[in-house]
Every structure is written in structure tokens, then in C-alpha cells.
């Protein structure tokens, strides 16, 4: 029994030595995740830090999947995601003692983009799927020039890829000839420099490239809001628990609901939530 008492006393000392739970820095916000939501997060950070000199906000873009992992591992305060959390991520969060709270910050249309010289104006979802699964490999099969289609895709850890997979591919396997790139900006630049390329990006990454209509509907803020554009999606910021009102984290996550936040979202190229 003496041995047990000694051990219990040791436990108490170890517990006291280690101290209380580490709290996050109230004046520092770490954001990680989607490259699609990244421009919104960066613009929000710039705006907020301009108004609050004592607050430091860092934004990383490692992909939606890695954003979820960062939140679960307490490596960030806000996970930006261009898709909702998966069941497996929710389960991992629960097991890690993380209460993942979902905040929809903006709406986006997945724009299918081609080189400006491409004469094609519209594709159906089935045609896009056929291109990305390798059933259609040449633009001439779609009435265009005899050019092999260069298929550009986001990496599979990307939320944009997940959205494209859900809305277009329907879990069909991507063609082995597809090139994978790490951001919407990289897709845009690859398409811009390659005549026969096709890619898909968020609305914020369409500058200089040609956007195609999908099923006869152009990807615009109006068609996204009206839900007539067939491959639209919400964009998210996840936090661990509900941020306390009055904190920098609360202000940052809820900026999308303010007039200034909506203007920033529009400036970036996305659609504010009404």
C-alpha cells in the first residue's frame, strides 16, 4: 500500500509540473487549408490586420485535406476547406477532442477553363467526365481541331478535386494521362500556356483564360446564387468550437457576414452568402 501511495504522490507532482492546458494566443490566428479559399483568407487577414495592428494572422495553403488535419492536430485555428468535412475527418476530430464547427463563408462555381484560343463554348457534364476519364482524348471528337487534349487536374488531397469528383466524375477514375498540380493558380497558368489544355478552378482563378458553359450555363455569381450553374459549391472555414464573441477569431470567421467581408469576397472573385 505504501508503494501505491508513493506512486499516487508522484502522479500528482507530474501533473502539477506539467501545468494547465496550453491556451491559444488570442492575438494570433493560424489559418491552413484550401488553396481555393486561400485568397479569401488572405484578403480577410490583410483587411483585419490593417484594422488591428496587434493581431497577427498567417495563412497557409496546403489543401483542404491537410487543413482538416491541421485543425484536428491543433496546428491551426481555422481550417479553410472547399468541401465539407468527410465522415472520417469528423470522426478523427471527435476522437481528438475537437468540435469542428462549420462556417460557410462564400459560394463558388467550379469553372471549366480552356486556352483563350479554344473555339469551344460549352460542354455538358457528361462530356467533361468523358474527357477526364479518357473516353474523349482529342478536341476533334468535340468538333474542334485535331489536338490531343491536355487534361489538368488538382491533386487528390485538394477539396476542389473532391468537389469535381463528386459533381462531375461521380467517382469515375481519372485518366492516367492527367497532370496533377497543386493550386488553382497553377492550373490557370498551365491552361494559359497550353493551347490544348483543359482544367477546372474556382471562380477566383479565371483571369485571362476562357471559361466554358456547363450544360449551357455560364459560371457567374448570378448563376451560382440562382443554383442554375450545375457545378457550384460552398466554401468553408472550420474552427474548433464556436469562437467567443469579441475575440479576433470570432471577428475573422464572421467577417464574411459583414458588408466589408462580402465586398472582399466579391473582389476576390467568389460569391458572398446572402
Amino acid at each position, binding site marked *: 500500500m505504501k*508503494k*501505491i501511495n508513493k*506512486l499516487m504522490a508522484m*502522479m500528482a507532482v*507530474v*501533473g502539477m509540473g*506539467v*501545468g*494547465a*492546458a*496550453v491556451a491559444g494566443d488570442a492575438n494570433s490566428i493560424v489559418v491552413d487549408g484550401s*488553396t481555393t479559399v*486561400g*485568397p479569401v483568407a*488572405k484578403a480577410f487577414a490583410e483587411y483585419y490586420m490593417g484594422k488591428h495592428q496587434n493581431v497577427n494572422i*498567417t*495563412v*497557409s*495553403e*496546403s*489543401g483542404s485535406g*491537410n487543413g482538416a488535419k491541421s485543425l484536428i492536430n*491543433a496546428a491551426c485555428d481555422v481550417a479553410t476547406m472547399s468541401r465539407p468535412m*468527410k*465522415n472520417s475527418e469528423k470522426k478523427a476530430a*471527435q*476522437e*481528438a*477532442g475537437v*468540435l*469542428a*464547427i*462549420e462556417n460557410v463563408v462564400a459560394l463558388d462555381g467550379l469553372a471549366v477553363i480552356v486556352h483563350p484560343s479554344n473555339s469551344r463554348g460549352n460542354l455538358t457534364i457528361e462530356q467533361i467526365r468523358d474527357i477526364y476519364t479518357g473516353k474523349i482524348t482529342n478536341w476533334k471528337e468535340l468538333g474542334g481541331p485535331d489536338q490531343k487534349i491536355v487534361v489538368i487536374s488538382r*491533386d487528390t*488531397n485538394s477539396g476542389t478535386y473532391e468537389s469535381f469528383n*463528386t459533381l462531375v466524375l461521380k*467517382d469515375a*477514375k481519372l485518366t492516367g494521362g492527367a*497532370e*496533377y*498540380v*497543386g*493550386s*488553382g*493558380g*497553377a492550373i490557370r*497558368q*498551365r491552361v*494559359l*500556356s*497550353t493551347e490544348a489544355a483543359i482544367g477546372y478552378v474556382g471562380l477566383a482563378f479565371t483571369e485571362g483564360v476562357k471559361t466554358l458553359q456547363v450544360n449551357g450555363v455560364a459560371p457567374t455569381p448570378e448563376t451560382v446564387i440562382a443554383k442554375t450553374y450545375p457545378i457550384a459549391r460552398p466554401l468553408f472555414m472550420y474552427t474548433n*468550437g464556436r469562437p467567443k464573441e469579441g475575440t479576433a477569431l470570432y471577428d475573422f470567421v464572421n467577417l464574411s457576414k459583414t458588408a466589408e467581408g462580402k465586398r472582399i469576397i466579391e473582389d476576390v472573385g467568389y460569391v458572398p452568402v446572402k
Partner: protein
Amino acid sequence: MKKVVAGLVLMAGVSGTCLAAESNAPAATPAPAPKTWADSITLKGDLRYRYETINDDSKKNASKETYTRQRDRVRARLAAEAKVNDQTKAVVGLSTGGSDPISGNQTLGDGAAKKEMRLDLAYIDFKALEEGTSELSVQAGKIKNPFMTMNDDLMFDGDLSPEGIAVKAQTGNDMVTVYGNAGYIWIQERDSKDAAMLLAGQGAMKFQFIPEVSLTLGASYYGFQNLEGYDVIDWEGKNNAYGNSTKKGTVSGSTTNKAWATEFTPVVYFASLDMWVAGVPVSIFGQELSNTDADTLDQGHMYGVSVGKAKRVGTFEAGYSYTELEKDATVGMWTDSDRWGGGTDGKGHKVYAKYQVMKNLQFGAAYFKDDKTISKGGTDYDRMQLDLVAAF
């Protein structure tokens, strides 16, 4: 959990890093480096060092002194998870331990002899469906427990890795999730007789009222086949029925083996109310069990509460549970091995606490205040455990 190094190289290539990455992206991205076998393999494991002391009144010595045992033990586990294709994983895991199906502990102090390590997991996990909130998967081989459990469980020890095929499904929306699990589990393959099997089904519904509050309600049916009248399965070779009623079994030389006196078809109802209170997860849970094949001593009860989750550095978890398992409530050989020394025919209290000392390093303590052999009046059984767990 760590990716093999080669995997990290590829990840770095496809993952952007920070702020200015978007606008400075390269005009053309080179084709990805060829993948190696290491890219698809994840290694994970843990190592637990445990001190425990046991006071067992059922084993008083000639001087009527309570049997006391103090020992240090280790448990090490290492598993490799290989991505076979987009829908399929293969998992192979090793654990310290011998033939005991419900413990990987190895006791220190036998002349520094090398410890045994055996196959703990070996299964294929096929994800047939993953669309939105709907999932359907099949596991085949030596698998993890496929059934929903709580912090404590009336049926199975946490270290049990059943053998056979399991199907797991779930679907729903933000408010309600429906779960369905089924198992085709081998217990004992017999040459000329009917094999002992477990055919089980489980259904549950989780109501997510708000993100902070959910209620899970469910029921499980465990149909053990061909146990009654057959010799008990005793990994210790001591003719031990782990609390269950027995009758005469086969005779082997001068030994008359014990045979199970009843069949087992336990039905378990369970509920769990999970909440977040002041930023801390709180769970209140319970299970009620009834073995529909036994005539008497066929009930089991378990109620408990847990507060916190020891995962992040500096976080804690603590909990309490009360458990009672009558003699023939369920098959004793697979129940929790810590409370009252394992098996059925016991009742008691458990309190525990865990603290995440450092990243991947956890300290834990548990105390069991139990009565064992309650069908004969019961004797005191107390057990205390102190754990240091390193996960990787």
C-alpha cells in the same frame, strides 16, 4: 502516424505552402515523380509501460492473507497500412503477447527473456461506397472490432481482434445518421463438427441536435453458434471458463474438460449522450445486456460518464463506470480483461484519468473496485494501473 519518407517528398510537391504561393505558381508543372511502393504505406504504433497492483481476496494464502501482485508490463504494437488502390487498404499489425486474445501485455522480470510478438491484425478493407455522408465498407481477415462501443463495453475487450468478415455502413444527413454493422466471425474451426461462430448485427441512430449535442441509440444482436456442450476455449490451458457455467466435456487422459453449459445470444441495447460543456466533451453512456439463451444469471449492465479527451498536449480525460456481468450474460473469454480479472460473474466500479503530457506521450491511471464470483456471494478484487503510453 507517419508517412514513409518517400511519401513526404511527393506530398511536398503537390501541396502549396503559404501566402504568396498562389500567384507565383509555375507556368507548367512537371509530371509527378514516379510513385514507389513506400508512397502507399503508412506505419503506426504505440508502446505502453504499465505498473499495476492487484489485490484479490479470492486467492487468500494459508495465512488468510489477501493475494497481492505487483508487476510492470509492456505492450508494443506496430501496424502497416497499405493503400492497394483508391478503394482498398491492406492492414498488417503485430502486437506483443502470446495466445491471449484480449491482451498484448508482457510482464517484465522473467530473466530478461525475449518477449513474443504475434500477428494482431491482418485484413483487407474495401470501401464499396463513399459518397457524401454515406459509406459502405467490408473488412475481411483478422480485423479490429467492427461494432460500435463506448469507453467501456460489456461484450469485448479493447484488445480483441476478431477473425472473419465484417460489413459496416452508415448514411444520413446533418441531423440524423443511421449505422448498420454486421459480422461473420470465426471462433473455433472444428474438423468434423460444426464450427463455433459468431453471427452478429448492430443498428444505431445518431441524432445531432446541434454540433455540441448528440444522442446515439442502438441495439446489437450477437448470435454465438455451437458453444453449448463443447469444451471451453481456454488460452491458458487451465480448463478455465472465464466465469461461465460449465458441465462435463470431453475426457482427455485423466483430465475431464469443462464444456459450456449454455448457448449465448446476447442482445445489447446501448445509448450515449455526447455533449460539449464549456469547451470540454462530456459523454454519458450505458449498455443493457440480456442473453436470451440462458435461463438464469443472464443479465449485464454498464453505465458511465467521461469528461474531456486527452489528445492535445495539456488536455485531460477522466471517467467513471459501473459494470455488472452475470455468470452467463455473455461469453467470458472475450470480455474486458482488467475488471475483476476478466470474464463474467463480476461487478464493480472503475475510475480513470489520462493526461497528455507531451506530443504523442500520455500518462494514465485507472482504479478498479470490483467483486468477482458474485454468483457465490462475491469476493473483493481491487486493481490499480499506471500507464505511460507513447504513440507514433
